């Protein structure tokens, strides 16, 4: 976790031949990914960590609410959460091939 902002323009960068880094907000539905960085302050980060969204955790976006509403996300520990989209933009994930 650090202070540098995560990309918010929706662009995904190719990090290797097999894996792509993007923000959780831009992750395709049902696409398996691992959280790479959570660019929020320490306290909010700790809270996200407590619910299972932290560096190294696996996440899948199940659906998106209309008009830029929250994401429905499943975490590696099996929990499902509605996650504010602006918050999801600050979570960088690495897509599994």
């Amino acid at each position, binding site marked *: 976790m650090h202070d540098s902002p995560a990309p918010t323009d929706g662009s995904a960068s190719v990090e290797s031949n097999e894996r792509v880094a993007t923000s959780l907000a831009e992750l395709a539905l049902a696409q398996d990914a691992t959280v790479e960085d959570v660019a*929020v302050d320490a*306290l*909010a*980060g*700790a*809270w*996200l*960590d*407590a*619910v*299972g*969204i*932290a560096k*190294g*955790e696996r996440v899948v976006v*199940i*659906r998106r*609410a*209309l*008009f*830029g*509403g*929250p994401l*429905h996300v499943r975490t*590696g*520990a*099996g*929990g*499902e*959460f*509605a*996650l*504010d989209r*602006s*918050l999801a933009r600050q979570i960088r994930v690495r897509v599994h091939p």
Partner: protein
Amino acid sequence: MSAHCEVPATTAASLPGQTRELVATGVLVALVGRPNSGKSSLFNRLTDGDAHVGNFPGVTVDILEGNAPLSAGAVATIADLPGLYSIEATVDPATDEGVARRFLDVALESPRPLVVVQVIDVTQLALGLRLTRELVRLRAPLLVVATQRDVLEGEGGTLDAAALAAGLGVKVLVVSAREAQTRARVLAAVEALAGARSFETGESGRRELSSDEMLALAKRVVTRAPAANAEANARAERRRTFTTRADALLLHPLVGPILFVGIMASLFSAVFLVADPVTSVLDAAKQALGDGITRVLGTGLVSSFLTDGLLGGAGTVLAFMPQIVILTVAMELLDATGYLARGAFLVDRLLRLLGLSGRSFVPLLMGHACAIPAIGATRVVRDPRERLTTILVIPLMTCSARLPTYALVLGTFFSTLNAFQKALIFLALYFAGFVTALVASLVLRRTATRGRGLPLVLEMPAYRAPEAALIAKRALQAGRRFLRDVGTTIVAVSAILWVLLSVPVRAAAPPTATAATSATSGVAAQAGTDTTIERSIAAAIGRTFEPITKPIGFDWRINVGLIGSFGAREVMVSTMGIIFGMENAGEDPGPLAERLRDARKPDGSPAYSMRTGLALLAFFVLACQCMSTVAAIRRETKSFKWPAFVLGYTYLLAYAAAFVVYNVARLAGVP
């Protein structure tokens, strides 16, 4: 902490040292766990359903507590802390996490033995262990109670409690809250831990696991018999499939919102369909009792105080009870089934525009039925600032109590309009309340309640069947809380209002002579009510305020009506009826409407006009004319500041709106 347990001295004196200490001080058990972890079910099992709101110093929100017997006469006080994800990431001290942290900090400083019991849903072990990682760092004995054993076993699985205990370095129990013996097992474990002189002795070897270690441990300790694997997997798969399919429908972009509106409409209808008949029965009982008192004591001041002051206040309290209970049941059902989170997901974006979140929707909707249960329902909003904002704007919603007043004003001042035009005005009034509430929430979030909000991270639990007994208990608790905290205030304010309206004062100047007051003099025999109210403290206040309310078209009589209707808005009709000598105006406002239309000023011009009606409607849309609402806000915010704030801002808004409406209507040529 709460009061220590009373124990017979003769018993305590003969006990060994540690036990004697427990007998003398009791044990405080802090029950912690994630939301939906089965904590409430275990709490009910441990306390045998006997719970009340605890009085814990430094903790400003309600924490339920109940006592449970230990051996040799010692008693454990079980405190049910709010559902939480973390005790370290306390983004705001007013959040559930912040409250729990404060509670634990205070408990740790207390000499009273403390045992922390973490409740984990064994079917979601990996999720629960995230909180365990923090709890092992607390300097207090820790017991992990894994619940839902029956569900796990139903899927052919077992939890290796010994392996889990070894992995965590703390004691672990695997239970089902549905089984009676669970109580004794948990309490015995609590007593064993509390008896230790220091938690290090029995708790040495506690381990702080990394995220990967925790996941690995969760996988390792749950085993399934090979023979049961296929069936268990199939059963688990069926459960997952059900939630997935239900979500596909209930969260569908098009169908989901339609179903949501339908479900909310049904919930709303239930209030009127079920609560109204019950309220009518209670009203009839109150009326019969009042008649009985009048028969025995006659029609003097004492009788009036008992019937109109005390019984009237008690009747108002009782009239709210059916709504409180039904709406609590509805909220609990929505929450327990997992649908509340889905509804919040659907409407979150819309409410974000107004500085709120999806969680605020249901309380706001309830506010259209009655603000009292709606204010209580804001407990589902986790963000404290958002919750406060929701509480502050709920009084602006057009509740059902406003309708009789709207009907009277429309019937009186808009008699020339047809039914369709009146219906349009009704609709506009509803809309005005809703829009004002939304604008107010936007403004409040940037002013009085500004500050960092919690990011929306809302758990979407698997759908599950609600526990009827638990919901009934919650509804009962809500009813009791209302009676104790709000009901007493309502009765007290009702008594004060009676004094204002019924006790004559010498200083009160006689009313200005008008056709209306002259007309009322002929019915002075009606228990002397008309002359009494004209000489009442309320009348004196009404006349004092007349220069202020004149610019919005209100004379002293309307002011008295507003004072009287602070008890309950619908009382405006009957209070005006008393002023104008119409005893039964509350039941049949027709003659009162006629009397109001005929009322004249000393110069012979009409005392009230259509503009007065418009201004009165604007005032009623916005003013928090409801002592019960004020009491409920006081109860939920645990302060006098916020109810005073609500009164201040809604009356200012109401006056400003009435002024604008009255004067714009005059410029527009409205009579």
